[in-house]
């Protein structure tokens, strides 16, 4: 199991497309830093130099996760595609070029599909979160990480939002870690949809776009019926999630886990 997992992880990460996805994600973050964070920095120093007392700007305000900006919108919109580009069609390609036949002679079918699923999960999570981590690092090296206070009304996190008590505490970094871990799990599970749909779809392009199409479809349904706050394209930004949306989000994550398990079972029953 270990050997096959290691091999799949190497296939996923030593890959030109993985490099492309990470560079694209980090590129958006760097553009965000150049065009938006630098404005925050200028504003911060102008406040320091003036005599007027004002609310201090903090690194917690201006990383891509909690800010409202064109780059934030772009990043969270395209991340399901970026996450699926390097490894999304891997199982389909293995089947198409006969690689799976050679592998299954040498290893257990269960191990192979389980390793595949874990790699889908990890690759999706890593692509989604590395740019977020980069953005936070860039923010904390540019601005002080001052403890946020709800009274300043500077932040887009309100008392109705989940974990707001952690954000407005001495442990703001814990909130950031929860945010990043949540996105890792969310986009990891969303990326597993590629594996699920490999059994139904015969088109590489469509398989890679499945997570994005599902996310966008849910967003559209959300806009019409239940509200966009309950759809992954919106709640990937944990700061907009209110406690009453939590039940929907947990439900959606459970469905994603269930679909991943279904894909595993289908894989085991697959006749070569």
């Amino acid at each position, binding site marked *: 199991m270990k050997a096959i997992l290691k091999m799949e992880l190497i296939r996923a990460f030593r890959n030109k497309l993985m490099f*492309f996805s990470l560079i*694209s994600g980090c590129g958006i973050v760097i553009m965000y830093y150049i065009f938006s964070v630098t404005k925050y920095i200028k504003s911060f120093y102008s406040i320091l130099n003036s005599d007027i007392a004002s609310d201090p700007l903090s690194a917690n305000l201006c990383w891509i996760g909690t*800010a*409202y*900006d*064109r780059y934030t*919108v*772009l990043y969270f*919109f*395209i991340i399901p*595609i*970026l996450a699926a*580009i390097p490894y999304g069609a891997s199982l389909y390609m293995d089947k198409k070029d006969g690689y799976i036949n050679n592998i299954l002679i040498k290893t257990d079918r269960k191990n192979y599909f389980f390793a595949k699923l874990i790699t889908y999960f990890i690759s999706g999570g890593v692509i989604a979160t590395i740019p977020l981590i980069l953005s936070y690092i860039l923010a904390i090296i540019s601005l002080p990480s001052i403890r946020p206070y709800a009274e300043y009304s500077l932040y*887009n996190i309100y008392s109705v939002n989940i974990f707001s008590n952690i954000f407005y505490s001495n442990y703001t970094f814990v909130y950031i870690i929860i945010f990043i871990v949540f996105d890792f799990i969310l986009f990891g599970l969303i990326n597993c949809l590629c594996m699920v749909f490999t059994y139904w779809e015969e*088109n*590489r*392009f*469509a398989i*890679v*776009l499945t997570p*994005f*199409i599902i996310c*966008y479809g849910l*967003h*559209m349904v959300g*806009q*019409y019926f239940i509200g*966009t706050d309950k759809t992954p*394209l*919106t709640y990937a930004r944990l700061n*907009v999630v209110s406690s009453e949306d939590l039940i929907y989000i947990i439900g959606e994550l459970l469905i994603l886990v269930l679909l991943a398990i279904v894909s595993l079972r289908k894989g085991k029953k697959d006749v070569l």
Partner: protein
Amino acid sequence: MSYKIIKKLVKYDLYWGILNKWKKYLVMLILSLIITFVFIKNSQFYYRLDKLDSMPGFLDYIMNMFHGMKNFISDGNTQFEIPVEWMAFHLFVAFAIGNYIIDDLEKCGINIITRVRSRNKWIISKIIWNVVAVLCFYLVVYIVNIIIALSITGKLQLSLTQSVCSKFFELNNVNMESGNGLLAIIILPILSSLAISQMQMFLSLILKPIISFLMIASILILSAYSMSPYLIGNYSMVQRSEIFMKDGISILTATIVNITIIIVSVIGSIVYFNRKDII
């Protein structure tokens, strides 16, 4: 002779790229049905509350599909709402155009090129297919909305309803007296879609189809967020046209830019494909 070969190639592409992909057109049909029915349901709700003077007609349905959104002004706190109808249509067209050309090239394109002894004819046929495929998507949307309009209102209303526009699109004083209104609602979205699709096909020849889709999706979302003439998605948003918005995008500029993009993409596709290593 050359014309006959191109005709045969176009016939082949229309069969395999449109008729054989009928499921995609069925999805577009369902999508436009859902969008229009949700719009009608919402209109009925407001009509019962006396917030609408009359129910929407055919052109309002089309407006609902392609209106996009007004200029978004970010204050750092307002959450950006994606214009779902406009985005869904354009993303779906991009998805449908997607990888047909590369897929066909990998499957039997090389054999066809060897048989017809011309790369130009093959790529010209694909360009024609692209135009027809995009027009077919619009045809589906129009047919669906014409049928709905005729069955609900009994007529094909070619003017916008003021109260509907105020309520749903935040447009006051809609003036449709000149033909420019119809041009902005009907012709410009089609022209923009043709430009976007030709650009996508050109990009998928240079890069990979998935990366070209990613670029189109990025352009569309950035266009919705920022009103800029450099982001071509803006030209397909009816609400941002100068007809409906002060300081909006001029119809002339939109037409010139779209035609320029189409010409550059077509020439680029032909020139690049002639030099591309396809073996």
